[in-house]
């Protein structure tokens, strides 16, 4: 951190070659490291999606949840696993609000965080998916697993339920 501020204070032309190398190579590496998803690693997401996935983290803010998105590209199809986390004072109410997007299909998932509900999404010709919203204390999280493969042999309807549970257990466990 101290080195980072030094890079900003010292005029560029006076930087030593070492400092320049630091700014050029180390800082981007640190930024990449900070881009890791706190609630699930790529290997776990890959296992859940059934193939090698790459992840991307979008930091949240006051009005926006932090998002981790993992994508696994197959031949002619894509599987995604998205996780969002936000901290909110009335987390239970927020969970209920989000769960409304399930319509009447929301079902209780036991032993995930303080509470969790899940429902199917995208169950049509463009693919299928499963969605979950849960809460750990004042943290509300969502998980969506989708596949654009309409006859996905790995993310079948049954397996989606299993895998969203597995994902939720990972995310909630890391939020505790």
């Amino acid at each position: 951190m101290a080195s980072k501020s030094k890079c900003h204070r010292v005029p560029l032309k006076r930087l030593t070659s070492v400092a320049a190398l630091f700014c050029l190579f180390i800082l981007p590496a640190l930024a990449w490291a900070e881009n890791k998803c706190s609630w699930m690693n790529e290997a776990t997401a890959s296992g859940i999606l059934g193939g090698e996935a790459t992840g991307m983290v979008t930091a949240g803010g006051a009005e926006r949840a932090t998002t981790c998105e993992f994508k696994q590209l197959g031949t002619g199809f894509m599987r995604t696993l998205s996780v969002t986390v936000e901290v909110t004072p009335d987390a239970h109410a927020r969970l209920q609000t989000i769960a409304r997007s399930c319509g009447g299909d929301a079902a209780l998932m036991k032993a995930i965080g303080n509470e969790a509900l899940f429902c199917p999404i995208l169950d049509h010709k463009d693919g299928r998916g499963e969605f979950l919203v849960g809460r750990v204390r004042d943290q509300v999280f969502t998980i969506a697993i989708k596949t654009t493969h309409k006859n996905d042999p790995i993310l079948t309807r049954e397996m989606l339920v299993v895998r969203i549970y597995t994902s939720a257990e990972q995310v909630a466990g890391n939020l505790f």
Partner: protein
Amino acid sequence: MKNSIIFLIGGLFLAGSWIVPALAQQGGTQDATKPSPPPAYTPRPKGTPPVEDTPAQLEALAKWKAKEEQMLEADREAHNAVVTPSYNFHYGKLSPYTPGNVTVQGNGFLQPDAYPSAEYCGTCHQEPYSQWRQALHSNAFRTPFYRTSVNILIRDPTRGIAFARHCDSCHNPIGVLGGALTEDSKLDRSKFDSDGLTCMTCHSVVALDSTNGNASVKMGVPSVIVDEKGERIPGIVPFDMILKHPERHSQAVMHDFLHTPEFCAACHKANLPATLNDYKFIRAFTAYDEWQQSKFSQRNPLTFYTADFTTCQGCHMKRNPNTLPDYGAKNGTFASHRWLAGNTAVPFYYGFDDQLTKTIEFLRSGNYLNVDIFALKKNGDDELIAPLGEANYNLAPKDNVQVFVVVQNKNIGHSLIPEVRDLYESWLEFSVTDAAGKEIYHSGSLAPDGILDPRAHSFTNRPVTDTGEFVDNHKVWTIHSVAYDNTIQAGRSVLVRYQFQVPADAMGAFTVTAKVNYRHLRQSYLNNVLGKDHPAYPVVEIASRSRVLKLGDNKPEVGNSEDNPEWMRWNNLGIALLDQFQYQESVQAFSHVVKLRPEYADGYINVGLTDMMWEKFESARTSIHKALSLDPDSARALYYDGLLQRRAGNTERESADFSKVVKMFPQSRDARRELGIVYYRKHDYPAAIEQFEALQKIDPDDLAAHYNLSILYRRTGRPDEAAAQQGMFADKKTDPGAPTYSLNYLHAHPEITIESIPWHLHTDSELEGGQLQNGK
């Protein structure tokens, strides 16, 4: 082709390994936990010799083994190539699992895929599989209660995930040994997090390293079968291979040590090492040593009572009739893999109703505790009205009544509460109600927010930091001292005294009730984990006793089966008073035992022991000699006689006493220690070393062994070993500054300070001099 099919089947089993457990957790889908039906099998009649393989079959097996070994090694190399470069070797390349003590066979991290899944085992062993799925071992890692604690350690800026290997070595050994516990983990955690201690963690252990705890085992490369030479074959095998040679399967997975308490000690004994806390060794818990010192081990001659030998497994893995098909059943029974104990929180959270019900039944069964409303004192008189139920007494309005409640840890093979006393909560609830049901006095109630009355008598402890703050969130690495520890050790008793005043307008009778309650977990810890809006967690009444006290004359009751025999009631009072340093009263209580059972040698020993503590050695000698005249081979009496002979300067008699005790109880740590001291004082250093090394084998953390061996090794020209022992002594000895941290805490918490004083009274009444008890 045949092999390809077998690999395909194996692959399907492995794929299933992370699918099925996940389904198991969904409410109402527990049927999904049931593995596929077992393959057909008819056990051969008992006594039939094992099937002999033909040369061709042996050759095929050898080929199979070679291929499996080759595959495992190739997978392991590939796994290490991925994991090792980014692994945080915080404690050096040679200590990848520190602060845990676990080690693993072979080179480098062991890939999680090397462990056959629980579902693979569950195909034939449906009974233990279904029990395990709801038990603590399968849920050792994933529960919110554990994750919250370990996440705090991981997120602590002065610690991090490398330090969590201390906890996960027992809670998630597959993750630790696989190299998952690093900042940039490359492992798919969904493969093992949900199964915690799966079948093939315990059943893959190949050696016990010591009884040091913190996962002090050597994990073998998982194997479910051995070949005809007894050599382990890694990986899964087709079921017909096991069914043809069940004896080879047993040889691979059922080591004899699995039946011993030493195996349990690997994780049910823990310390906080300097590598975790940057401070020093602090004992965390040691259910194993508590058992070893209890009557159930038959290794300690100094227990107050005796019992049949019973291991940890004897209580926590009782054999039960099978309810599901199981090829491992013996006479239709299987050792329980529920490991029933005290944890109601986990089954409550997951909705494992069977496990919850059986846990509550277990806590209430077994005659584990005895609650005795033993005696009264009135209006500040010294006269003890005891034992209640046998004594005559009179009660009147406005009487100031002191009630003596004796709680005996009668049949638990360890303390109440064992293990993490900062999280589990057991307490005595005491109430007095009048004939109309109106409450006159109540101690130990729960507030509407679920918090236990801080003035309750609890069997917990209060670990504190170096600034005297209570370690509320199980941040064990910050523990520097323990402000108080009110556990009841195995076989011992505590006396809890309550005082209340009979109302001036009282009429009729009063009911006095004392209950030992248990809650898993303490409310403020539950709040830390789940926030305050969680449902109330179960409070289990483990044992209770009520008595009716009448106004006016109270006559002896006709035989009451709820109470211990009268001599034992006095004995328990004596034990409790001894532990509370009330020596005079303790001697009086034990004297009642002697009067009631004049042939009972231990009655005299107890009087003698108390006199010794009271430094009345002449009187002690008389009692111990009386005991020896009744029972010349009493190891307990000989031990105390040895101490008295030492005091009198009779070295040979002292030596003879302790030698005899060691011969009768070779695993008595006390006798080994004292005999070592005898030899040390005789300058017989080799003999002294032998005793202290034997002591260290019993308890690797024994301070006397470290201290004396450091001197003895130096005097016998072994400076390196001497230095090592000296270092361990310095590390394990209590920090002399620790009491200050405790005092800081107690000073800031007057409401609880009284609990740190062994001899204290619970009352709402004003005492002499206008002072109030219990911080009120």
